[in-house]
């Protein structure tokens, strides 16, 4: 079981009591930056980064705190996007219900895929989640309601809770920010709850956790479902923001991208995935005109991160100040 230990050594040891203070400061700084950001930066770009940030956080919960590498997380992002877009456009649901519908479907998919995959470990787990994701991809390619290569376009943004008109970009931004922060806090709470401590125990030494009476598979499954559900929340929100659900979000390259974001930000850190997502989205934004270069640069970052920079940006930072972030 090298899995758990290696990821653990990449993170800083933490005790719940010691971590609280400066993490609250870091959180406050993040919130402040994100509240000010839309007045300085193009809001649509920020919303994209926030959606991917939440997606990466959901993924990071699984790899960083349970030690499971899912290589099929695009499934949750993409299928939730399709359901939300379909609900908002065809059924005319308000955005909050559409997003919830997408999130619920992602959670249900998490139960099915998780139940099948959770018995395997390490590389096997990565391989199996990847294959299931590809299966869902082909389903989305062929199912009539997804409109194949075209995707679901011109999804109406609607009025959030009947009050906030989402056609205004800034209103949309603050709704997305609220959803992101809610998801982030859920993950933070989970990590620092007794449940999260059990997950870490399983990551460190699964046989021992089992011998102590914890039903490891049930804990892992619950974490997987939670991670999938939150990834679905990100996907549903993304579909409403961009008024589009497409095959890109279900394709396995998206699963690779979220791995990269989390790895770059720092495995086993709370803030790492958000930072990683912002860096990657910025890079993609500037490299978009260069076509294939996006892939090349992504690949190079992967190689460099794996070879020399395994703690990631936030992980290095945490090491520097000697406290977990």
């Amino acid at each position, binding site marked *: 079981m*090298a899995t758990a230990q290696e990821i653990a050594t990449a993170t800083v040891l933490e005790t719940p009591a010691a971590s609280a203070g400066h993490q609250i400061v870091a959180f406050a700084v993040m919130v402040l930056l994100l509240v000010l950001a839309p007045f300085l930066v193009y809001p649509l770009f920020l919303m994209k980064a926030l959606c991917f940030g939440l997606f990466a956080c959901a993924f990071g919960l699984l790899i960083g705190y349970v030690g499971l590498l899912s290589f099929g997380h695009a499934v949750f992002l993409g299928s939730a996007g399709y359901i939300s877009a379909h609900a908002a456009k065809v059924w005319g649901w308000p955005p909050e219900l559409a997003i919830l519908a997408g999130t619920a479907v992602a959670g249900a998919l998490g139960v099915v895929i998780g139940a099948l995959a959770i018995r395997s470990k390490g590389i096997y787990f990565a391989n199996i989640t990847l294959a299931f994701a590809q*299966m869902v991809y*082909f389903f989305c390619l062929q199912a009539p309601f997804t409109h194949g290569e075209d995707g679901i376009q011109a999804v109406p943004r609607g009025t959030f809770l009947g009050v906030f008109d989402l056609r205004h970009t800034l209103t949309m931004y603050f709704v997305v920010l609220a959803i992101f922060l809610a998801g982030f806090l859920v993950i933070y709470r989970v990590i620092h709850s007794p449940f999260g401590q059990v997950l870490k125990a399983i990551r460190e030494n699964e046989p021992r956790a089992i011998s102590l009476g914890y039903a490891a598979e049930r804990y892992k499954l619950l974490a997987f479902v939670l991670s999938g559900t939150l990834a679905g929340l990100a996907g549903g929100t993304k579909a409403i923001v961009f008024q589009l659900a497409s095959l890109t979000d279900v394709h396995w390259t998206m699963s*690779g991208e979220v791995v990269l974001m989390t790895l770059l930000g720092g495995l086993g850190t709370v803030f790492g995935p958000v930072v990683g997502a912002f860096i990657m989205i910025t890079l993609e934004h500037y490299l978009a005109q260069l076509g*294939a270069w996006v892939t*090349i640069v*992504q*690949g190079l970052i992967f190689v460099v991160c794996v070879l020399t920079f395994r703690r990631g940006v936030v992980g290095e930072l945490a090491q520097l100040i000697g406290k977990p972030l």
Partner: protein
Amino acid sequence: MSTVFGVPTQALFGQLLIGLINGSFYAMLSLGLSVIFGLLNIINFAHGAQYMMGAFAAYFLLQWSGLGYWWALLVAPIVVGLFGIVLERTMLKRLYHLDHLYGLLLTFGFALVIQGMFRHQFGSSGLPYAIPAELAGGQNLGFMFLPNYRAWVIVASLGFCLGTWYVIERTKLGSYLRAATENPALVQAFGVNVPRMVTLTYGFGVALAGVAGVLAAPIYQVNPLMGADLLIVVFAVVVIGGMGSIMGSIVTGFALGVVEGLTKFFYPEASNTVIFVIMAVVLLVRPTGLFGREK
């Protein structure tokens, strides 16, 4: 024209042949993955890119030096294999003391870089590669028309697969390899140079992908992304067969190619997903795969 279940047999055999061809590639690629996985415990995510490099190597050999198909079949795997050896010596080697997942991530990064560079240089459309003159034409078998080149691909792939199986399961060299899979420290203590064996094994697995690429060049076009999506299917094949099992990957590779071909004939809508459905069922019944053992 004769029929089976009310459908023309000619079309059925046509799909069976396509299934066997696809199966040949599934078998060769999953075999390479299995060989690598067995000793290195790494899922070689760059396998699809290395398969593509094999096809491109054949294309370059023809364009630049006029060396034809048969030379390519010899030279391309060596070139791609050497590339693999360099990759293993310079980078993969540094990750053995870490979690195996890092190996997967590194090779994934490499696949992105390689595919991105080829796409940057050659675009996404395919480059044609002619069938060698010796294998042009085909045989009329009465019930169907069999192009010579396709027959050759199936025979060659079977040959490479069984040859690999023989070397690993029946020779002294193979017994070292299997021993090192079980317990590398002990084998090293007996004076076998295990690190060198690991390097050569990786090179060999990669070379197998290169061979598959050369075989594929005349059938599919030479395309930077030809290996990317194929690899995901091959992963599913490896999961079904049981990771690390040599015979398992050969048998499941061919069998799943045929199953896919038959599905394309009887229920085309499911042809893309059938392998993944089988995988789900197999995992429910036998989590370690059909031929796999608990490790």
